[in-house]
């Protein structure tokens, strides 16, 4: 938000850049916008025409009738049909304009949301890691909206332009002197609107920003409610909230002051103009140059033109948002680094053996990237330079076919990174990753998921049914779903859900517990019968007894399957044929559990921490008893 505000003031070429975005919108929604513009032009012409029709009726029908002291039905009918026609045309213009503008706006929004999300699906995980998810969501939502919102008032502004031109012609046609007043009033009104918008938008932006800040503080503090209470910090938190609330109050009053200043001015300008028309008009009538109807026409014109002129202000107020929004949207659309795929299939008769040769990976330690900033600096091809934190360095591992290999290591040793590299969810910076002897970079898109599957640490469920989450839309039989749920120990609780496996799990599986989500994610992997199964701490949220049952089930199933498992728990490690011990991104040792227990001190310390602790306690207790 703050960066958006900065961009706004730092860009003197907002108008030019904004118009370029507008041009793009016109090119993409040509037909709909043509309807809107034509409708708006009709509206513009008819608004001016209405004043003329009234003046015409007054001078040709009403005045003579008043003078004659009587009016015929034919005269009344003239008033009715002429006015009705003018009203009808105006309304048709308005309807076309508004519907066209709305359709263009929503079509553009939808089209760009599709493009942005396609890009999210296309860009590599490393790109996702650099961008906070909140920012990406608001890009597809708020930034896209901000980019195209200008199309809501724009057709009206175009119509008003027509209105002003036709109006000016009318004024000059009626009387030069009255036209001169118009030439003073409308530019003044235009300028007042511009000044108003330019004063208003930074204040409104500030107020919005502070509103977001108030909301952030409230979110954070109330979410931390337990902690605030547990530490007795209610008073300080209230002060923190009161401080930002007060800044919002002051900013909102400033918005009010600006409005309060300009509203009366913008209203007074055409009113004073109308009064001037009446004064000067009377003198012109006295001079015999025009008649009363002419004065009324111009006065009426002033009063109906005053409001629509504001639409220029609305458009101009939108343009900075358009530019900032577009920059951010464009940063996503033009982001590079998409993963390239080769032409090959993995061998059809492979056994899922995987190997890593000299694999290194590092991620940026700097603050996460901001889309607005990327747009300004023209996003670099590769990951941003700067501090890099090494996650893996020169890792060489063989995951032998048909066996289970455990990756063990303390927090932050690179285990999860390894799990994603094995399946080519990210490309390493150096080294080669293979499955069944084939370099994964040469494999076609979709080739790896066909044979290898990951169950991630954070299980992710789609807002779909249980079945949909397990099959992911593939044609799999009920029996297969049954079987997968059973292996994952999910059959029991799924049967108890209101609609069984047709139960929708809610956004990200919100209606299920963490353990239940993990089990469904597990079933999703099992049902694919992958040759290579990668489990990244995939049973962390299930009870020990259930975990044991899952592991037993997997062991039975996994005959012939190659399994790579990231784990802490001894129970998981002990089902592995081989263990690979990592520390700070390096392979310290590989071998069987027994071998590592004997020769690798770090490994031994990690996996026996609890038992050792218990023994030491027992010893201390024995000492104390003895003394």
């Amino acid at each position, binding site marked *: 938000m703050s960066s958006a505000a900065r961009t706004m003031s730092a860009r003197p070429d907002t108008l030019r850049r904004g118009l370029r975005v507008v041009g793009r919108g016109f090119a993409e929604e040509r037909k709909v916008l043509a309807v809107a513009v034509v409708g708006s032009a009709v509206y513009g012409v008819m608004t001016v025409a209405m004043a003329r029709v009234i003046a015409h009726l007054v001078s040709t029908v009403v005045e003579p009738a008043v003078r004659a002291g009587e009016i015929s039905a034919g005269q009344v009918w003239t008033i009715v049909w002429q006015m009705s026609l003018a009203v009808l045309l105006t309304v048709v213009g308005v309807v076309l304009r508004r519907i066209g503008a709305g359709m263009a706006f929503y079509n553009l929004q939808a089209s760009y949301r599709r493009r942005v999300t396609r890009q999210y699906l296309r860009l590599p995980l490393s790109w996702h890691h650099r961008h906070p998810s909140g920012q990406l969501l608001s890009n597809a939502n708020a930034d896209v909206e901000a980019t195209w919102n200008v199309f809501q008032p724009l057709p009206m502004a175009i119509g008003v332009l027509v209105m002003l031109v036709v109006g000016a012609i009318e004024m000059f046609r009626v009387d030069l002197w009255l036209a001169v007043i118009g030439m003073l009033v409308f530019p003044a009104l235009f300028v007042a609107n511009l000044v108003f918008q330019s004063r208003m938008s930074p204040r409104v932006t500030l107020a919005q920003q502070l509103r977001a800040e108030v909301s952030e503080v409230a979110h954070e503090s109330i979410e931390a409610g337990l902690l605030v209470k547990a*530490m007795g910090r209610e008073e300080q938190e209230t002060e923190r909230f009161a401080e930002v609330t007060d800044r919002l109050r002051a900013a909102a009053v400033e918005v009010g002051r600006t409005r309060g200043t300009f509203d009366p001015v913008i209203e007074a300008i055409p009113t004073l103009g109308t009064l001037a028309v009446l004064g000067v008009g009377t003198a012109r009538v006295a001079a015999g140059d025009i008649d009363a109807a002419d004065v009324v026409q111009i006065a009426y014109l002033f009063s109906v033109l005053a409001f629509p002129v504001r639409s220029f202000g609305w458009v101009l107020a939108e343009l900075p948002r358009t530019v900032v929004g577009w920059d951010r949207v464009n940063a996503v659309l033009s982001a590079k680094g998409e993963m390239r795929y080769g032409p090959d299939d993995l061998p059809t008769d492979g056994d899922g053996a995987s190997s890593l040769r000299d694999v290194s990976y590092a991620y940026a330690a700097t603050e996460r990237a901001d889309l607005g900033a990327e747009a300004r600096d023209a996003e670099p091809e590769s990951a941003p330079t700067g501090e890099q934190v090494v996650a893996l360095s020169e890792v060489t591992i063989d995951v032998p076919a048909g066996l289970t290999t455990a990756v063990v290591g303390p927090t932050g040793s690179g285990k999860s990174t390894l799990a994603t590299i094995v399946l080519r969810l990210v490309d390493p910076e150096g080294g080669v990753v293979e499955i069944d002897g084939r370099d994964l970079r040469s494999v076609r898109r979709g080739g790896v998921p066909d044979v290898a599957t990951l169950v991630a640490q954070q299980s992710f469920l789609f807002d779909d049914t249980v079945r949909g989450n397990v099959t992911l839309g593939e044609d799999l039989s009920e029996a297969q779903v049954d079987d997968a749920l059973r292996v994952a120990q999910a059959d029991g609780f799924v049967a108890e859900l209101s609609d069984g496996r047709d139960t929708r799990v809610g956004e*990200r599986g919100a209606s299920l517990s963490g353990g239940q989500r993990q089990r469904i994610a597990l079933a999703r992997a099992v049902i694919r019968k992958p040759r290579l199964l990668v489990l990244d701490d995939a049973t962390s949220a299930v009870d020990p007894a259930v975990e044991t049952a899952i592991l037993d089930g997997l062991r039975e199933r996994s005959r012939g399957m190659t399994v790579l498992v990231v784990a802490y728990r001894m129970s998981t490690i002990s089902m592995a044929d081989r263990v690979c011990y990592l520390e700070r991104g390096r392979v310290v040792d590989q071998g069987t559990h027994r071998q590592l227990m004997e020769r690798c001190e770090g490994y031994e310390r990690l996996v026996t921490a609890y038992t050792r602790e218990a023994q030491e306690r027992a010893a201390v207790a024995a000492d104390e008893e003895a003394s």
Partner: protein
Amino acid sequence: MSTATSSEIGGGTELSTTDTLKRGIALSPELRAGLLVTLGLALVSTIGRVMVPFVVQQTIDNGILARGGPDTALVVRLTLLAAAAVTFTGLTSYVVNLRLFRASEGGLATLRVKAFRHIHDLSTLTQSSERRGSLVSRVTSDVDTISQFVQFGGLMLIVSIGQVTVATVLMAIYSPLLALLVWVCFVPLFIVIRRFQGVVGRAYTLVRERVGDMLAAISESVVGAVTIRAYGVEERTGGRIDAAIDRHRRSAIAAQIKAVVAFSSGQLVAGLTTMTVLAVGAVMAARGSLTLGELLAFLFLVNLFTQPVQTATEILNEMQNAIAGWRRVIGIVDTPADVSDPSEEGVDLPRGPITVEFDDVSFAYPGGDTVLSDVSLTIPPRSRVAVVGETGSGKTTLAKLLTRLMDPATGRVLLDGVDLRRVRFRSLRSRVVMVPQEGFLFDATLLQNIRFGRPDATRDDVRLTLTELGLDGWVEGLPHGLDTEVGQRGESLSAGERQLVALARAYLADPDLLVLDEATSAVDPSTEVRIQRALDGLTTGRTSIAIAHRLSTAEAADEVIVVDRGRVVQRGPHSELVRQTGSVYARLHASWARQQT
């Protein structure tokens, strides 16, 4: 049952509109200050709006059409006077704007802070996680709704009422009959638009729902990035997203069309009213019951009706929303805090190790099953106690009662023999600290987060704490050490690391009774053991109660309390309990031990 009603936050108390206004004004006294003056000035300021029609009438009747030719001097005098009046009313409307904004924003800021404070005073029962979102919206979007109404709708409402009133008065002076005609034309429109508004309102409700669905679908492409790539379901996910986006687009266009129809019918009626006025007025003028100037003034006056009538329903809807929002905020402020600070009447706990006593304590969530029943136990000072049990056995409830995050339904919790309900919060919170499982972190640096419990601690104090906990190495490994930003909710740290910060925070706060609720569940075994040792050091000479999932904690405790289905079923040292074959603890321990080998 009193807890049950009070937990119906904001929803249970259906205040009437007038009561809402009364109570709302009482909560924000700024709103009342000088309100009458503001309204009086507002009325004055609307007079400026009928200046033009009035001068039009005068100009035509007494100026241009004056007997003996146009009277330019009169018109000029008149326009100058009117210009002065317009300038003056312009000034008053500036004053009105400013006064309204000052009063309303001041009042709303007060309301916001009051509600915020009160939310923190509500018990964790009311604050439960699924309600947190709605609690936040009480002090954010609900108040914003009121504020937005006051800034736009409210102001417009006052101006519109004034404008319609003044215009009607002037019309009635010119011709009561024609004035009536204008009203007759607009009133049915008002009713029709109101009906339309229902249709349009429902259409936009659907749009909002679709926006929610669309955002949920879009979020899958971001949050599910790993899963989508691992399973190669980019196409399928893209298809689902496209469908959601298109459903939103279609509903939005449908709503727009309905809104346009409603709006245009307003314009149509306004235009046809002008036509009717002109036709009927022409007849009246021909018969001499209306002057030409008056007739023309009417054409201008009709325009003053169009905009208020068109926006009236919108404003009324906004007002209903604002009042509903106000009602919800008031609902929060008026929810009694079921766990309240005895403050003045309370007592302070003496410094030193604490004895904890549960005296026949029972607890049930409102409308739910009993979570704890008849728990009586005494934990002597300086002891290290582990509470174990299966998920849902009531362990966490025990911790919350002990730290007075909730009060028991029956029975008493005593610290050093004092009923917890009589202990001053200030004293209680400085002596008793709980570390919850989800160590919440603020979007700030590591240093600021650790200092949260003791704001006066220096950088060196924090360093010392980390060294004592054996966490100095870990902090040095972070990109900016103690000044590393942890991100929102600590998202740039792992779950285990967040727990380390929470522990350091509690350690620094230096309490006499430390309550750990599965505070190391996400930490790797060797780090956990290291932390455990440091905590043992901390808790020597103090009382500590640890709720544990990993039984390594229980093995290390002086005493283990086993909770099963809301009752304490076993207590004693680990070595003793584990020998009681067939017991709950023996079973728990066996399954734990199986995992270690």
